[in-house]
């Protein structure tokens, strides 16, 4: 069978969001790949320049559905630093609780999607069933299951009553038990191990070179976690550790995410038990002084950076958002070449791509390892000719 271009997406059962891969396959092996992610650009950065600090927070929350709190938090902590606000500790703890609950639901969701991608639908059903617990807790805390609307400049918008704290604490042991089961399943389920081990491998040097962030980087042994490296909110006061792994493949990323689930549970429990008394909010001035700041936060998918510049008005002059998925795409295109087509969804899913918040694209650079005698340019030529002729095999 000669090389065939296999179009995957923009609408495809494996993909939850619009993305287009044009995979050039030789039999079952990928020899080349083009990605196109530009289907969901919404111009949020431009829109954010037109809104004041109260109204921009809900907008930024909607950059991404899963890590909505992360975006709002990166922005709020940045603006608070510019305004030099002292946010009360209770607000910081509440932010931490929501942030870690969000991380938990994101990682559980990822585990389910990864299992679904390798055809293990049972784990998918079970994880999504257990994810409901975190969603219920978030709904009770914030009033919404997604896009919580918890942050604002100066603090948080909702408080926790002692009754709610007790109710949340009582639900955590069940969740912990389920997470323990996942660890066992991921380490013991043969078909999943077959599909995860040695797939999409990135060495530590490669992970650093291609600028990976978050669990993808930590699975390759890169010891970066913004929560520790550039601490904000309540993280310096809470005992927790950064989870890293040395496998560097999809299996390692799974282990890192499950390890982080357990850490997050510990953080939530600590924060609930040691929730300081006091205000949850300090009134924020309407305008921010002229300044610029790079606000970083570890979103569930990796390091999130908001570059904010203010110009002495009640609106931001420029907000530049770098989402974790954008940083991880380069590594995906590199690690896909020479893999099996059956592994495309696994490798892509392993970085937990969030396309709406990325809405950006990459095309495989010339750095893709060359295979056989064909150069990359020849291969692209060949592929395009093929495509024009109808992609027949």
């Amino acid at each position: 069978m000669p090389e065939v271009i296999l179009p995957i997406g923009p609408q495809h059962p494996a993909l939850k969001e619009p993305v287009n891969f044009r995979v050039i396959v030789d039999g079952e092996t990928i020899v080349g790949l083009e990605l196109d992610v530009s289907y969901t650009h919404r111009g949020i950065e431009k829109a954010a320049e037109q809104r004041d600090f109260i109204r921009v927070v809900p907008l930024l929350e909607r950059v991404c559905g899963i890590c909505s709190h992360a975006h709002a938090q990166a922005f709020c902590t940045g603006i608070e630093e510019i305004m030099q606000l002292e946010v009360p500790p209770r607000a910081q703890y509440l932010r931490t609780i929501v942030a870690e609950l969000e991380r938990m639901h994101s990682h559980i969701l990822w585990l389910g999607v990864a299992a679904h991608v390798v055809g293990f639908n049972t784990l998918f059903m079970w994880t999504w069933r257990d994810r409901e617990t975190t969603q219920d807790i978030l709904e009770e805390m914030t009033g919404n299951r997604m896009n919580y609307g918890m942050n604002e400049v100066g603090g948080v918008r909702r408080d926790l009553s002692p009754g709610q704290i007790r109710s949340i604490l009582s639900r955590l042991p069940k969740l912990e038990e389920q997470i323990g089961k996942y660890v066992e399943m991921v380490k013991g389920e043969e078909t999943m191990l077959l599909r995860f081990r040695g797939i999409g491998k990135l060495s530590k040097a490669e992970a650093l070179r291609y600028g990976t962030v978050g669990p993808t980087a930590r699975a390759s042994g890169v010891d970066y976690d913004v929560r520790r490296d550039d601490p904000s909110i309540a993280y310096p006061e809470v005992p927790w550790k950064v989870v890293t792994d040395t496998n560097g493949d999809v299996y390692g990323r799974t282990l890192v995410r499950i390890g982080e689930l357990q850490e997050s549970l510990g953080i939530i429990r600590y924060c609930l038990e040691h929730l300081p008394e006091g205000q949850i909010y300090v009134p924020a001035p309407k305008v921010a002084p002229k300044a610029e700041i790079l606000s970083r936060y570890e979103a569930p998918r990796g390091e999130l950076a908001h570059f904010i510049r203010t110009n002495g008005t009640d609106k931001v002059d420029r907000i530049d958002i770098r989402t974790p998925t954008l940083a991880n795409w380069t590594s995906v295109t590199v690690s896909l070449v020479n893999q099996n087509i059956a592994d495309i969804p696994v490798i892509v899913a392993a970085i937990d791509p969030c396309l709406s918040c990325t809405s950006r694209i990459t095309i495989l650079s010339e750095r893709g390892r060359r295979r056989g005698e064909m150069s990359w340019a020849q291969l692209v030529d060949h592929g395009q000719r093929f495509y024009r002729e109808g992609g027949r095999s």
Partner: protein
Amino acid sequence: MEPLLLGIYILLFPGFLFLFAYAFLLQYLDRKIAARMQQRVGPPLLQPFADFIKMLGKEVIDPAGVDRKAFDAAPVVALAAAMTAYLYIPIVGGSPFAFQGDLVLVLYLLTLPTIALFLLGWLSRNVFSSVGGVRAVTMLFIYEVPFFLALLMPALMAGSWSISEIALWQQEHGWFALLQPIGFVVGLIGLQAKLERQPFDIPEAETEIVAGPWTELTGRRLALMHLTMQVMLVAGSGLIAALFLGGPLLPWNISPAWLATIAGFLMFLGKTLVILVILASLKVATGRIRIDQLNDIGWKYLASATILQVGIVLLMDYIRVGT
């Protein structure tokens, strides 16, 4: 058998009418058990039947440039092959069509749907379908050898090439599942692969190649292919039940013939259901493996296990005949 009785046998019971009803029931049970194991609710009883009727009524779309006649014929051929194979499976006592060598015919007929699936994939001129079709055939070459070897071992030991006679042999000597446990396990795994269920749903891996050869199937073609797979499930589990679990025959004789028939029929139902539960559990407990991994597993473990079984059978035969 009289022509009238034979007609009833083929058309009504335990022929095609029963076959379709039972195929839908097995499909329902399969889905229901899987759903409950995943803590879902699962479909209602008539869902598979409703799906079938609905799909029959849907518009048939011809992909551009496709050979319509071949595309129409392939599902029909596949279904006919699966239904014919079913006629040789003993259901209420031996099959009236039994002859020496019907085991080989059944194995051949059960391979036809896979070939039809490959043809459909290849004919539809869709890259997903082509890749899926190639995968289906590649998989055929991997699992077919151990599967056939495992299913032929009972014939070797019973000294007959007729499924009904093999079932009869077990009435006296005990089930082959106990005599040839490795063959039984390989047979179940091979059946799972033949039916393209997890962990062997490689040709129709939805997260990779949409639906593989099924991608361009619509309307009645899709309905017929689904029905083929369901009939294959009945025929395959019936075949395994006959070859390894003694089929519809009881280990002892029951005096009135009609009672024996009913008991045999119940045995058939019970045994196929047990096989279905095993297959459904396997489906729920595993993810999809890759084709190269299947290649490894198939040739390294399954094939060598069956060869081992062949050796054991030959040795046992030698001892038995020698003494």
